[in-house]
């Protein structure tokens, strides 16, 4: 193969930074810390969910990593408490499978039982946990609760039909300090976005447009109905700046038809 000096695998993410070598050297399997990994994971999850272009695949992988971290932290806390109370040999290592907030095993492909447990992070060569585990556990709980709140960034809809799973994100969970810290499951609620058609065919159209000022469409003022672009009142109510040109004419046409119905 000819030696050619152009970067074949070049991508935006792969630009070398000055401290790349140092980071790589410091991050050996035996030395990376749970807290650092947790911070990185939560930051990635948060960034992914605030991006206009969300990546569900990436979020799932990061969330699974967080669940494993949380499970290991909990197991480690339990073990430490046992050791502090009774000078007995540590209990048998529990499964490190990801668990839901109810303590049940999370299922594969969202239906089947999970596979064999993954290696414990406290086993060599991956002695992940160090430092004060109880404080870490509480920090994780706080972060996850904040994450549950933060991740619900999509505007909550006005109505929710329980029969139709295409509709609407879940409501943000109210944090219960007495409950077990929840895994970052509610981030996927942000991906629970409705199909655009469902909004338009929903029966309670009045509720959708109740906050729109339609006075400009008042015929008595000499303003012909349907003359103005129907996108305008929506922009006025939300106070958003004008958006980029929209290539999907179907939505605009349907909005125009609805406005014609409203103004008669």
């Amino acid at each position: 193969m000819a030696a050619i000096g152009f970067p074949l695998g070049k991508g935006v993410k792969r630009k070398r930074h000055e401290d790349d070598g140092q980071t790589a050297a410091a991050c050996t399997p035996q030395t990376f810390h749970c807290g650092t990994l947790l911070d990185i994971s939560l930051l990635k999850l948060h960034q992914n969910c605030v991006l206009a272009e969300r990546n569900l695949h990436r979020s799932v992988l990061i969330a699974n990593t967080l669940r494993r971290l949380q499970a290991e932290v909990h197991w480690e806390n339990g073990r430490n408490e046992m050791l502090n109370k009774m000078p007995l040999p540590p209990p048998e290592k529990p499964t490190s499978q990801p668990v839901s907030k109810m303590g049940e095993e999370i299922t594969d492909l969202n239906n089947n039982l999970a596979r064999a447990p993954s290696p414990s992070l406290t086993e060599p060569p991956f002695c992940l946990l160090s430092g004060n585990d109880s404080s870490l556990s509480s920090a994780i709980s706080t972060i996850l609760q904040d994450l549950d709140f933060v991740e619900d960034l999509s505007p909550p809809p006005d109505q929710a039909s329980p029969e139709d799973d295409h509709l609407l994100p879940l409501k943000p969970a109210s944090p219960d300090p007495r409950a077990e810290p929840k895994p970052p499951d509610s981030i996927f609620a942000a991906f629970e976005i409705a199909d655009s058609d469902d909004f338009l065919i929903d029966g309670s159209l009045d509720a959708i447009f109740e906050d729109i000022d339609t006075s400009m469409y008042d015929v008595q003022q000499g303003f012909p109905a349907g003359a103005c672009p129907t996108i305008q009142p929506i922009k006025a109510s939300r106070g958003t700046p004008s958006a980029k040109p929209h290539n999907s004419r179907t939505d605009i046409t349907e909005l125009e038809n609805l406005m014609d119905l409203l103004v008669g």
Partner: protein
Amino acid sequence: MRRAGSCGSDVQWCFTQVKGTTDLDVSEADIISTVEFNHTGELLATGDKGGRVVIFQREQETKNQPHRQGEYNVYSTFQSHEPEFDYLKSLEIEEKINKIRWLPQQNAAHFLLSTNDKTIKLWKVSERDKRPEGYNLKDEEGRMKDLSTVTVLQVPVLKPMDLMVEVTPRKIFANAHTYHINSISVNSDCETYMSADDLRINLWHLGITDRSFNIVDIKPVDMEELTEVITAAEFHPHHCNLLVYSSSKGTLRLCDMRAAALCDKHAKLFEEPEDPSNRFFFSEITSSVSDVKFSHSGRYMMTRDYLTVKVWDLNMETKPIEIYQIHDYLRSKLCSLYENDCIFDKFECAWNGSDRLLLNSDFTIPFKPGFPEYS
């Protein structure tokens, strides 16, 4: 388990062409996001982040140098997808081309499917090297003639012209995916194709754009229970009822569409058992399958994950028949790769025409030679 690097003595790899710029500073829109040869290898389509598709055509082999591979030259360029904004969901829809698939050629024209995150389009690529001249009602510029000047009827004739490649959109398949489309695959019946996103797979008819059938749906009732997504999907090359899809947990599911309308229950599950001595914290992320391809024979499947290429026999679900470590040296650096997001990179794989060689994309070298043959 066979280690990569045992190169076959009869395989020599070298670069024949470099298309595009070698400049280090390229714009984001020019970054190529997908490539696909057509079935004969005559045409090569590339899609980029700017929503454009560039088609290259191989030169005809000359009699002077019959053994030399023809060079590829630009055949056509067109804007496939434009950036869109979904007002109701307040989301930007990228124009980046995720996948291109050629349809089997049935006449002089070529057809290809291109898709971004939400919309699939069918394009017709045709050549025109003749044009009709001598219309009775129109002049040479196409304007209507004054009928009073028309005294003699003439028969229009086809005259040669400079070759012109026309690319026209024939169908647009939209509004069927809530999540990002990661795969499209044309069925062997040449009438249907499927599109897969993170949680669902839809079946389309190439001639019908206003409806599709959902054949796989792994979305949980409660999104809080979501732990696995669909990463790739492909139809069997010969059996129009069989399809395979891969998951982010490294599993493959072979589905038979004859069994049920909704193929949530797989016919076969291909899953490699975990080796307790070889597990590590990021093993779940690195086991996420980024690409799956059937061999041309239909007997084998190849999968690509972050660290390995695996070959599966459709008759054996318990483990792959071959595993190739691609860059094992990265195992000790997974933490850094996780930090800088490189661990989420996706790679593709392909069989060569005779199923003798396995090809895969990588960080530094495009091809990995020297795999045993599979026929």
